[in-house]
């Protein structure tokens, strides 16, 4: 027998009645058809024929529906018939729901469809909400992806949380993850029970690896015997570095990474024990590392023993130490035991303490605070986006008050409405999150490329992965629940009768209050971001204004590694430098050129220095910057000479023991007297000679202005210039060049061809204009300021949408009042003032609260600010002013609409 109930349900259009009644009618009519069918069957009619006859009883279902509608016509139906077209869907929705009865999954699908239909019907609203959410969620996902890669994701080492980086704190509060070799030796011998292994390592530059006819430049890290144990790795073939190889004069052994082994040696296991040529010196291959091992901090191709000697280099604070915590020990215990042995540690005169940090934290370095600040900023942005969406939804809830009232009148349960609202906002949140995720994918690529820091785990490690996606989804779901609840809260507070009577446009005062609070919150949060952006912009500006001590315009710089000749003697290097200099100076447009061991803002090269014969701490300085320069260096860089004379060509050819010092060193040692003619010794500290043979005492012949060393934000350190060509002092493995010329776009290629014609194997590195060098030295600050400004702009845009929305509603709600005012003779200006005034009040309250919030939050910026305090007035004034202007603009459009109100229409509006 056919299911007649189903048949009726399929054929009878919705009746617009309450659920129980509608059910009854369906049942009754089904019963009628069933009776007709059964009777026919009893009379001996075939079931098919009986079915046709029963069905024929009702030929026109639409007419039946009309008849029943007319017959019924309860109170609710009275409303339903008068329901404006745009609300009929809601009424129908109620009825369909009721007739269908409850089924969780079907309900959910139904809610989804209904939500999608509603959103499609309001494309403007949906677009603004989805875009707002996408911005908030997208920015968060992008930043979080980077944080995840750099700070959160465990490093690919065995038990990575047990790896610690040791560091020490200097007297000036500066923290460094570097030690001297004697300090390491001390720690290795005295390391407490809390450390299972302790290893030192130091980047060792590049080597020319020659293998048959192949030549490859490979980068090397020097490590001690426990280094690999610390990182939980052992060679798959051969062995690690041995203790005796870390002694001065120990055997030259080398451990290859898997990639290099396959690339250069075809993965031949027989390479173990063979000799290979690195910079023309023989090294014995002793081990091959596993394929999945990568030393993230310094992705070297080869590892060689770090020979712990007493050379000048070993005396410098330039060796990093990593350690693995002993089983059962934690970082705090290691920390306190290190602190306990600190008083016996050598070379500790300028340090106040030694400590251990999680290795991952050390690896992230400066990036970590920067990322956390940016994350805080995007967090604020997400809050603003949420407030904006909530405010939009509340505004829409007001205009939907009538729909909701009707559904409540038709007997809709509040619980069901809540679910409907949650579904609707979830759908928007999910679409927003989806669009945001796409935006994040796109933004991430450009963001990673723009990041001025070397990402410790490498750019490739930054991707949108599972946890990032979970985070996005979590944010989306949280925000959706928040919006759903917010708008539902509005509805449940609504007076149904009033809503019906007033056509739903006049929201209650409390609803307006919530929206106002949201907008004020948006303004306040935007101000915080604006202040942050202004502070960072000020920092950037201050850095730009810093006195460099030289003129970077029209100066090009590059670096040449020492020529690849053996044996590499000071004479050979000097010969090479002279050749390069002569050729460069002949390039068209070049006005002057010079060589310097290290160009400003690129690197450091510190060596102790003291006043000859004065062995007290006051006349020794541990970290003076030493520069070997050719005679036209000061002229090329336009570094002002303050006293005495510059370094001259004769100084180079005769090798006379002279030095030029900078102003800082002159003031430090001879504050009241003339430094010219004084004697200093490079490489001597408290009477101890660090060079062997020692550098002779040098006569100070000139004083030049201070030049920034590595960072624009640091004052220049004491500096000593000596004549190039005197290579009794080894200053690294490369020469830097500075060239001043007339603007010449082809200068770069001219330099390249000049040097490669001289020696095709000679490499030219980091060819840049000096302006670019300065730019990249403050790239981090520029990046921070740029992103923060971007966030602040988005926040401003969102806040203006919020203000606009609230005022539009304000004008709509007050059309009647405004009409009366105009009818009574109010001038357009007065009306304008009424609306704009409303917007300004919101903005001003928001700014006032925002100042408080910004004062609290910008404290976290302190570490990355330069010469501007988080409480200086200007950023707050600028931020507040910008917001007030934006509020004025956002108010203007609704205000204009208000002035155009036609009193006649407005009065009829009721």
């Amino acid at each position, binding site marked *: 027998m056919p299911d007649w109930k189903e048949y009726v349900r399929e054929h009878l259009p919705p009746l617009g009645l309450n659920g129980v009644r509608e059910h*009854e009618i369906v049942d009754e009519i089904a019963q009628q058809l069933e009776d007709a069918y059964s009777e026919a069957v009893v009379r001996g009619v075939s079931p098919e024929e009986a079915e046709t006859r029963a069905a024929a*009883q009702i*030929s*026109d279902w639409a007419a039946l529906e009309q*008849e029943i509608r*007319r*017959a*019924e*016509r309860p109170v609710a139906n009275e409303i339903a018939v008068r329901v404006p077209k745009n609300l009929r869907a809601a009424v129908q929705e109620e009825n369909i729901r009721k007739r269908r009865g409850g089924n969780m999954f079907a309900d959910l699908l139904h809610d989804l469809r209904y939500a999608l239909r509603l959103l499609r019907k309001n494309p403007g609203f949906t677009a603004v909400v989805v875009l707002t959410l996408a911005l908030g969620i997208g920015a968060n996902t992008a930043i979080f992806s980077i944080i995840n890669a750099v700070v959160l994701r465990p490093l690919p080492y065995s038990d990575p949380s047990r790896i610690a980086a040791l560091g020490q704190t200097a007297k000036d509060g500066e923290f460094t993850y570097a030690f001297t070799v004697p300090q390491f030796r001390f720690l290795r011998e005295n390391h407490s029970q809390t450390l299972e292994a302790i290893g030192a390592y130091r980047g060792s530059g590049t080597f020319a690896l020659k293998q048959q006819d192949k030549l490859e430049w490979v980068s090397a890290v020097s490590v001690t015997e426990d280094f690999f144990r610390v990182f939980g790795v052992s060679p798959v073939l051969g062995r690690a570095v041995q203790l005796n190889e870390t002694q001065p004069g120990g055997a030259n052994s080398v451990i290859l990474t898997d990639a290099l082994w396959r690339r250069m040696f075809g993965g031949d296991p027989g390479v173990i024990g063979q000799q290979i040529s690195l910079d023309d010196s023989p090294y014995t291959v002793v081990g091959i590392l596993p394929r999945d091992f990568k030393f993230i901090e310094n992705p070297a191709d080869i590892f060689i023993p770090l020979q712990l000697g007493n050379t000048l280099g070993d005396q410098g604070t330039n060796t990093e130490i990593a350690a693995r915590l002993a089983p059962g020990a934690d970082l705090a215990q290691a920390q306190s035991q290190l602190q306990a042995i600190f008083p016996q540690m050598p070379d500790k005169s300028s340090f106040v303490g030694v400590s251990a940090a999680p290795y991952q934290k050390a690896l992230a370095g400066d990036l970590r605070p920067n990322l956390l600040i940016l994350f805080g900023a995007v967090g604020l942005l997400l809050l603003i986006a949420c407030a904006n969406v909530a405010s939009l939804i509340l505004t829409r809830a007001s205009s939907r008050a009538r729909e909701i009232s009707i559904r409540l009148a038709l007997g809709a349960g509040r619980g069901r409405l809540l679910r409907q609202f949650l579904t609707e906002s979830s759908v928007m949140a999910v679409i927003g999150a989806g669009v945001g995720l796409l935006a994040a994918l796109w933004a991430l690529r450009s963001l990673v490329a723009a990041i001025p820091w070397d990402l410790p785990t490498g750019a490739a490690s930054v991707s949108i992965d599972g946890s990032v996606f979970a985070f996005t989804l979590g944010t989306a779901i949280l925000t959706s629940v928040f919006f759903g609840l917010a708008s539902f809260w509005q509805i449940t507070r609504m007076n149904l009768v009033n809503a019906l009577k007033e056509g739903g446009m006049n929201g209650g005062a409390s609803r307006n209050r919530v929206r106002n609070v949201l907008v004020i919150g948006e303004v306040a949060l935007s101000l915080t971001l604006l202040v942050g952006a202004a502070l960072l912009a000020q920092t950037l500006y201050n850095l730009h204004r810093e006195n460099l001590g030289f003129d970077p315009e029209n100066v090009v710089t590059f670096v040449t590694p020492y020529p690849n000749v053996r044996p590499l003697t000071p004479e050979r290097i000097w010969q090479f430098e002279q050749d390069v200099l002569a050729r460069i100076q002949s390039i068209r447009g070049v006005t002057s050129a010079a060589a310097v061991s290290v160009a400003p803002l690129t690197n450091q090269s510190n060596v102790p220095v003291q006043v000859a014969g004065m062995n007290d701490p006051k006349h020794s300085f541990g970290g003076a910057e030493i520069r070997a320069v050719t005679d036209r260096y000061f002229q090329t860089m336009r570094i002002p000479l303050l006293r005495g004379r510059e370094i001259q060509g004769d100084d180079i050819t005769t090798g006379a023991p002279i030095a030029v010092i900078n102003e800082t060193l002159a003031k430090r040692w001879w504050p009241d007297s003339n430094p010219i003619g004084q004697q200093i010794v490079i490489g001597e500290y408290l009477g101890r000679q660090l060079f062997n043979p020692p550098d002779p005492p040098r006569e100070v012949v000139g004083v030049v202005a201070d030049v920034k060393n590595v960072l624009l934000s640091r004052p220049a350190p004491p500096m000593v210039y000596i004549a190039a060509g005197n290579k009794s002092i080894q200053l690294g493995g490369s020469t830097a060049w500075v060239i001043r010329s007339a603007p010449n776009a082809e200068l770069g290629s001219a330099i390249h061809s000049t040097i490669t014609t001289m020696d095709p194997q000679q490499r030219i590195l980091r060819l840049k204009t000096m302006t670019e060098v300065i730019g990249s030295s403050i790239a981090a600050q520029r990046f921070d300021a740029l992103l923060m400004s971007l966030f602040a702009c988005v926040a401003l845009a969102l806040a203006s949408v919020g203000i606009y929305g609230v005022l539009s509603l304000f004008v709509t709600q007050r059309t009647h009042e405004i009409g009366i005012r105009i009818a009574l003779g109010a001038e357009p200006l007065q009306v304008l003032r009424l609306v704009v005034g409303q917007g300004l009040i919101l903005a001003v309250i928001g700014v006032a609260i925002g100042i408080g919030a910004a004062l609290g939050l910008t404290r976290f910026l302190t570490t990355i600010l330069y010469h501007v305090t988080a409480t200086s007035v200007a950023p707050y004034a600028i931020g507040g002013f910008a917001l007030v202007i934006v509020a004025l603009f956002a108010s203007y459009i609704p205000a204009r609409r208000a002035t155009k109100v036609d009193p006649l229409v407005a009065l009829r509006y009721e």
Partner: protein
Amino acid sequence: MQPELKKGTAEVLILSLLEDRARHGYELAKLIEKRSRGVLEFHVASLYPMLYRLERRGWIEGRWLEKAGHRRRRFYKLTAAGRKALPEQRKSWREFIRAIERVAQVGNA
């Protein structure tokens, strides 16, 4: 025939059939067809809206009843108001018939 008349006709038929006992919709339709010997046929499409209208008016009352061996059905019975309205309805019906007879001279033919 004016719609009101038609409606009135049907209403008086239903009220009359419900006078002695409660009946369900199918039964009503069958009875009207049977007693008029097939002359009057009540379409489902008009019967039920009619019942609902009478019910709204408060003259009849429907109730779901389940009799032994039968399906659950909605039985309609005359309410007090309906019982009171029936003579009035009959009266106006009779007047209507008479008016037709006079016009068409049916009785005197």
